[in-house]
Structure formats: C-alpha cells, structure tokens
C-alpha cells in the first residue's frame, strides 16, 4: 500500500489563483520523496493539503491509508509535521514544547516525559532543553521542530523545507536525522528548493512548477533522461554581439541552454569529446574563451529541460564543508 496517494489534487484560492493544478503522485511506504520546486510552485500548498491544514478544492489524497478530507483526524494521528517556518513559541522551553506536543497526541504524562527526554537527546538538545526557544539558533529550532514531529512515532513525516536558511553543518545534521528515521521505517515527504538536498536524500524526486508536476523519478533516472553533459563557458569580453555569435557557434555542438550569470551553456550532443572542437570553433570565430567547465547533468538540468528555466537559487547550493554551527 502506498503511504501517500494523490489523484488530481487541486487547490484554487479566491481570486482565481490556482496554487496546485491537479497533481498525481504516489509515495511508497518507507520511501523518502522530495518535492522540488521554486518558491510559489505549489509545494507548501500541497503539504498543507496532505497534512489536513487546507482543504483541497479538487481531486483526492490518501495519507497513511486515510482520506485527507473525510478522515482528517485519522490522518493527523498518523503523521508528523514540521512546517516551513518552525512554528515554535519562543517563550516556551524546548522541554515544555515537547511535553505539550505529547499531550496534543494523547500520550500519557509519564510516557510523554520519557519520549520527550529521549527525542531531545536524539536531536542533540539535552543541554538546551530547559532554555527558552527564543534563545535557540535556527538549526536548533529545526531540530526541535523535528523532535516534536516525532513524539507520537508517526508513520509518515512531512518536512516542509526543513533546511532552508540553515548553515551547512546544521543542514547536514538534519539530513543525517532524516536518513536515520527513514532507516527505521518512517516514510518521509519533504519539500525543498535545494537540488543537493533532493539529490542526497531522496529515493524519488517530484519536480513541481506552477502547480503542475513537471517530472518525477529517481534522481539518477531524471538525470539520465537529460543525458548529455553540459559545457559552461565565459568569453574574454562580454559584448552582447559576441554573445549572440557565440551562441550560434555553440548551437553546432548541441542545444544551447538559457545562460546564467553571463555564462553560456550548451548541452553537448556527442559528449565530452566535443570540447576541443568547441574551443577551436570559437577561436576561429574570433571569440576568446576565459573559463570553461564540463558539468555532468544535475537536477537543475532536469528542471531546465522540463520547465525551460533554472531552479531559483540553484547556483546557491550549500557548500557542505564550510561554515560552523556552534549551537549549544
């Protein structure tokens, strides 16, 4: 049985805005599914419908075996939710929030205390547990949010952009925890605008754009569909007319891709063996090359292929080895 099954899910807002325009997808039990898309693509609206916070205006969705409209209470019992803006009361302590969350899920007091302590320990917040949440760093808040979502041992976990705005160390810590949870059998549905996050974590990726599913599959499969490596280059001088001429030259070797930050790109039809020919052709056309880079297909390429544009912030992917997150 699928952990999540969506058919023709749609959400229209007043004023005729269609945030989600009839999407279909299935997430198998025990899978990590990443919902990838730019801001405003419909990711959060979809999550809000799946977590019963928002009623769909069309289609239907089954989560953990329950219909999100007709059996909303059963859905809420079966899922854990960590929303985009960690919805935490800054005046409470981490431990108080954990106890409250346990009460909300009908967990007896003693069990709630025990589970809270274990989860705070699991996410590395034992020392900070009795501090007010207002004093926590962004990474600590996200970890606490994750811990609260787990207090009742949910079958399906929804994470809405769990690492947005976090430093690389905190991001890695969240990824590690998500992997562990998945290893323990929890199905994870996460939304993200980070390609690397989807690439690193997800068993399957769904790309959503403008409220519609643009592509779906394993990261490897999606990248294989794009297939060809991409050559990125900058010219010695960035004059517009030369730029146009360069695009004409590059078109002989494959499909030119939309340029990004003044960088020209071409999807090489015959692969890496064409590099020398490209450089020679540009040289013969009197165009000097300043930088040259061969890039293997990424999920951004998949996004470009499917939507005709780059994923917002795709050039600002987290550098995992830099930055320090001193949190406790």
């Amino acid at each position, binding site marked *: 049985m699928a952990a999540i099954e969506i058919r023709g899910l749609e959400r229209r807002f007043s004023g005729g805005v269609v945030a989600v325009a009839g999407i279909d997808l299935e997430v198998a039990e025990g899978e990590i599914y990443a919902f990838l898309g730019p801001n405003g693509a419909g990711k959060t609206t979809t999550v809000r419908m799946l*977590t019963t916070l928002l009623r769909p205006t069309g289609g239907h969705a089954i989560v953990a075996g329950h219909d999100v409209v007709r059996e909303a*209470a059963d859905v809420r019992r079966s899922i854990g*939710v960590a*929303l985009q803006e960690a*919805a935490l009361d800054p005046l409470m302590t981490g431990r*108080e929030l954990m106890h*409250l969350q346990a*009460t909300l899920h009908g967990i007896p007091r003693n069990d709630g205390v025990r589970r809270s302590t274990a989860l705070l320990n699991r996410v590395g917040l034992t020392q900070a547990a009795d501090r007010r949440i207002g004093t926590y760093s962004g990474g600590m808040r996200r970890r606490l949010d994750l811990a609260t979502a787990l207090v009742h041992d949910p079958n399906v976990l929804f994470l809405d952009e769990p690492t947005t705005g976090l430093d690389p160390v905190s991001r890695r810590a969240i990824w590690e925890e998500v992997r562990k949870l998945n290893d323990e059998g929890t199905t994870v549905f996460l939304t993200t605008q980070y390609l690397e996050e989807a690439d690193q974590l997800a068993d399957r990726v769904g790309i959503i754009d403008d409220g519609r599913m643009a592509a779906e599959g394993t990261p490897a499969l999606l990248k294989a569909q794009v297939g060809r490596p991409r050559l990125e280059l900058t010219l010695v001088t960035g004059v517009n007319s030369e730029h146009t001429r360069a695009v004409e030259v590059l078109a002989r070797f494959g499909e030119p891709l939309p340029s990004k930050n003044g960088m020209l790109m071409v999807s090489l039809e015959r692969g890496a063996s064409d590099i020398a020919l490209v450089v020679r052709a540009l040289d013969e056309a009197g165009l000097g090359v300043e930088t040259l880079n061969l890039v293997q297909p990424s999920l951004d390429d998949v996004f470009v292929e499917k939507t005709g544009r780059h994923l917002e912030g795709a050039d600002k992917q987290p550098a995992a080895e830099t930055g320090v997150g001193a949190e406790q």
Partner: protein
Amino acid sequence: MRGRLVWNLRVVAALGRRSVMQAFRRPQFLAPIIVFPSLFLAVNTGGAGRAVDLPQFPQVHGFLDFQLAGAMLQSTMLAGVSGAIALAMDIEIGFVDRLIAAPIARSSFVLGRLVATGMLGMIAGIWFIAVGLVFGAHIAGGVMGALVVIAMVALNALAWGTVGAALALKSGRASVAQGVFPLVFVILFLSSAFFPRGLLLEPAQTIADWNPMSLIAEGLRDPIISGLSFGSTMKGLGGIAIVAAIGTALSMWGLRARLRAG
C-alpha cells in the same frame, strides 16, 4: 467516549497553562491586565475623589470603593484584547498550524486561550480586591461579596476573551488586535464603569443605558458598595452573558473562516 473527553480536557488545560505562562513571561501581555488599570485606578481615585460629593452620586464608603468595579472591568476587557494579540501572534508564527495539525478538537486552541483569559481575570479580581482593601476600600458584601466579585470578573474576562478570539481569528494579525485598545476606553466611558449613569450627559447617558458594560459594572459594584443582592448579581451576569453570546458567535464564525482559509 469518556477517555476522549478526558483527553480533550487535558489538552485544553495544557493549552490554558501555556497561555497563562506566556502572559507571565511576556510583560506586555500582563501589563494591560494589572498595571494599566491599577494606574488608572490610582489616578482616577486621587484626582476625582470629590465626585462623591455630587448630588446624584450614590452613597459610598469612599470613591475607591466606587472605582474598583471600573478598574476590574477595564482589566477584563484588556485581558480579552491581550488574549486576542497573543492568539493572533500564534497565528502569525504558525503555532496555530501546529495545533491544527494535531489530532485534537479544532476548537481546543481557542478554548485553551479562553481558560487562560478567565484565569488571568480571576487573578486580576483578586489583585484589585486586595489593592482596594490595602488602600482602605470597604467590601459591603463581606467575604462572600468579594468571592462573587472575583468570580464575575473571571467570567467577564472569559466573555471578553471570546470577543478577542473572534478578532484574532478573523484578522490573524496582532497589529489589528492591538489597534482595538483605544476602543476599550470608549466603550468603558460610555457606560457606568467610572461614573453613575445619572451624572453622564446626553447622548452618553442613553448609550450607557443600552451598553451591557453598565450592567456588568453595576453587578460588580453592588457587592462592594451596598452588599450582595440576587438582583444585581443577575444583572451583572446578564451583561456578561450578552458579551459572551456575541463573542462566542463571532469566534465560531472566525474559527470556521480560518479553518476554511487554511
């Protein structure tokens, strides 16, 4: 069935406890309930004490006795507004989404907030009775009169809490709730909260005759200045019931609208 009821009560109690704690941890929530009305009481009593000599002023032991009801009424109305601000902030930061995503009755977070507002009202009632006694007020209704006043203050806070909840649920913005503060004073001054109806000029007097705040003010005042009576207590409770009925209807409408909007 019984288990479910106990769980729901546990949830409401936990959310109420959190809201009371929130008020004590954030002074700007507690100040309108205790500090502002206390200052207002001090200034009013000190500055207008000669009002008791006016011909239509009721027989009172002292002007402070008369003013206590107004201070308590002001405190409970501001408790409602503070509750509205706190709830609106919960909506703004997404805390309400956390509660809605949990398998609890969707009205629980509003009920929790109302329980807290009632508790804060009770604390305010105790505070003003204590302050009154310290500064020489005389409670004509004795201990039982004081207890009835405290209970009515708590109920009135609860009633105003429903109005505050409606405001927060409909607007979802703390700034809107904050903007209502001045209205509290307009409503109070157009009632018999601070002066007897007979001393108000027209059209204020007519408005005060129709303002349920006058019923509540007089219901709170009578046990202090003239002793406990069934009639005045029922008059006060009647005024509270009017506010609660309007507030409950509006907050149910606000809750439905908020849940629909997601």
